[in-house]
């Protein structure tokens, strides 16, 4: 039987006719990607940039970070130097100077035509330049916050992902531990532990502990012990919910290994949640540090933190209000910025959670 010579009612395609044509180049390229695929990161950043408030506060935060890194190197005063005290004795005119005021000897030198760098924020009760103290205080406060966030990030992520990935009995036991730590009265435990750690560490003088001060070390230890549980819960929840989704099943059925699934699917899907939560952890640590400073358990003197400056300034609120208001303003600014940046990041990278 010849092709084309067939039953007209047949459903078979008649290949003898000229059914097919060569495709033109234009048609061939219709499916190719002309632009590079927008990545998750780029998508998120685009959404973040559209959030005016978050962008403004990110810029403020960047300025603050640049300032606390650079200024201590170029500023003519030191945070611990008491300007009114020297070989000649004590010059009380340097104590509690208002912003842009000068001490007696400085005035005399200025009369001689010498240039004296102004005390932008005045001086404190011991005659130390307050601007550099606030800057160094912000440095310490942010350092505490960032360190706490990093510790929480590492411990919480590892703990949460082991718990979420293993599942079963391991998960059960690990989560009960988290539950217990979660329902501790944290402020009380923090105070208790920092007092005890202070006493225990105070015997170890010198070295790293001596230079940082026992209080700071105990603050770090306390954060490492107590603050990671929130992050661990979050990561575990995220992993559990992703593990059950169809695309993981699809990937597995196509022969993906566990390592591949973790690397390609689980980590990218958790990163945004982890980063946002770590970002929001910084202000909470700054707060805790400031409370501990208020109770006299903060960083070692004469090292300042914003919290200790504000609580020291509190005593002189009626006479020298700027001593409290300036550090308090910077705490608020930093905490507010970080909160808003964190919220912005969450909205940008995790639209479902909004």
């Amino acid at each position, binding site marked *: 039987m010849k092709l084309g010579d067939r039953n007209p009612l047949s459903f078979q395609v008649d290949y003898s006719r000229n059914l097919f044509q060569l495709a033109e180049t234009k048609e061939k390229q219709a499916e190719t990607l002309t632009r590079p695929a927008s990545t998750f990161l780029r998508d998120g950043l685009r959404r973040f940039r559209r959030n005016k408030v978050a962008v403004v506060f990110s810029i403020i935060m960047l300025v603050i970070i640049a300032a606390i890194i650079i200024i201590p190197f170029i500023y003519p005063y030191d945070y611990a130097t008491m300007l009114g005290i020297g070989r000649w004795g004590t010059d009380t005119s340097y104590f509690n100077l208002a912003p842009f005021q000068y001490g007696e000897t400085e005035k005399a030198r200025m009369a001689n035509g010498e240039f004296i760098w102004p005390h932008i924020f005045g001086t404190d009760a011991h005659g130390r330049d307050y601007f550099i103290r606030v800057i160094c205080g912000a440095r310490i406060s942010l350092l505490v916050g960032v360190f706490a966030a990093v510790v929480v990030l590492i411990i919480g992520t590892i703990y949460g992902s082991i718990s979420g990935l293993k599942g079963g009995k391991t998960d059960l036991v690990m989560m009960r531990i988290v539950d217990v730590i979660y329902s501790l*009265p944290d402020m009380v435990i923090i105070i208790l532990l920092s007092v005890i750690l202070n006493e225990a560490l105070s015997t170890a003088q010198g070295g790293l502990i001596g230079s940082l001060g026992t209080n700071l070390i105990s603050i770090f230890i306390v954060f490492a012990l107590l603050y990671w549980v929130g992050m661990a819960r979050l990561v575990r929840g995220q992993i559990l919910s992703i593990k059950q989704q169809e695309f993981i099943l699809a990937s597995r059925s196509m022969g993906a290994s566990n390592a591949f699934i973790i690397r390609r699917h689980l980590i990218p899907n958790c990163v945004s949640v982890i980063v946002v939560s770590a970002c929001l952890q910084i202000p909470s640590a700054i707060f805790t540090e400031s409370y501990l400073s208020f109770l006299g358990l903060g960083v070692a003197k004469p090292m300042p933190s914003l919290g200790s400056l504000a609580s020291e300034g509190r005593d002189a609120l009626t006479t020298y209000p700027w001593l409290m208001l300036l550090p308090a303003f910077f705490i608020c600014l930093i905490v507010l910025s970080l*909160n808003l940046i964190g919220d912005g990041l969450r909205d940008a990278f995790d639209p479902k959670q909004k």
Partner: protein
Amino acid sequence: MNSKTLFYIVKRLLLALLTVFVVVTVTFWATQAIPGGPFNTEKALDESVIDALKKQFGLDKPLFVQYLIYLGKAVTWDFGVSLKVRGVYVLDQIGSRLPASLLTGLSAAAIAIILGLVLGSTAALKHNKKADRVIMILSTASVAMPSFVIASLLSWLFYDVFKVTGTGAIVWILPIITISLSPMCYITRLTRSATLDVLGADYIRTANAKGVSKQKVLFKHALRNSITPVITYAGPMIAYIITGSIVVEQIFGINGLGRMFVNSITQRDYPTIMGTTIFLTYLMVIMVLISDILYKVVNPRVELE
């Protein structure tokens, strides 16, 4: 109450007991880590005197036995005698300080919950309008201030600028405002986002479509659902307010538990420190338990694990 609910409650109770056990263990062994004993004084005591004292306080026994004894005492709330306030039981001390903390804490919690719910649902109803913006800006800004700053500024405003004088109820106003501010803002934000979620749901549209009044939709249909996250937050919050208003009590001179805790810490009065810690843990654990059970009552859809 079915067996599942009962099982859940029993499980939560066991967890609560475990938490208390952990705290007792941590406080006991942590205080052991402190160098120096309780009888270290500037004047060297005679060996026989120290031995007699140790015997009297049961410190001559091995550490582990001491720990077990302490565990037993923690269960029966026998926290011993204060080291610094002569002849006063720690529990009596707690009892005399608790009312002040409860008064400020509970009224602050009530204010925070009521105002938070009102402000939050207002913001949700006026979504993206001026009222919403103002509420959101204020609640975001006031969370950014440490409470001792707020307390100092408020007392400065009150007593130095407006020259408010007087005793009685007025003394309590400032601490209550200070304590309630930050949980109130948090509840406002919680309520707002929950209400916004709920208001978008189908059954609300149905209720609106069949002509149910706006108030009724809000109170009868929306609020009951948007209140659930607030409940989970409120239990620990109340405990946290009572235990965590240490700073505010210190500033306003309220003779509460928090101030007692700080004083005992500055005086290194270990029985009081340990007793207060354990008591506050009990308080926290009970509040968390209540809020977990309440959560289930208000929201029957919640699956108990």
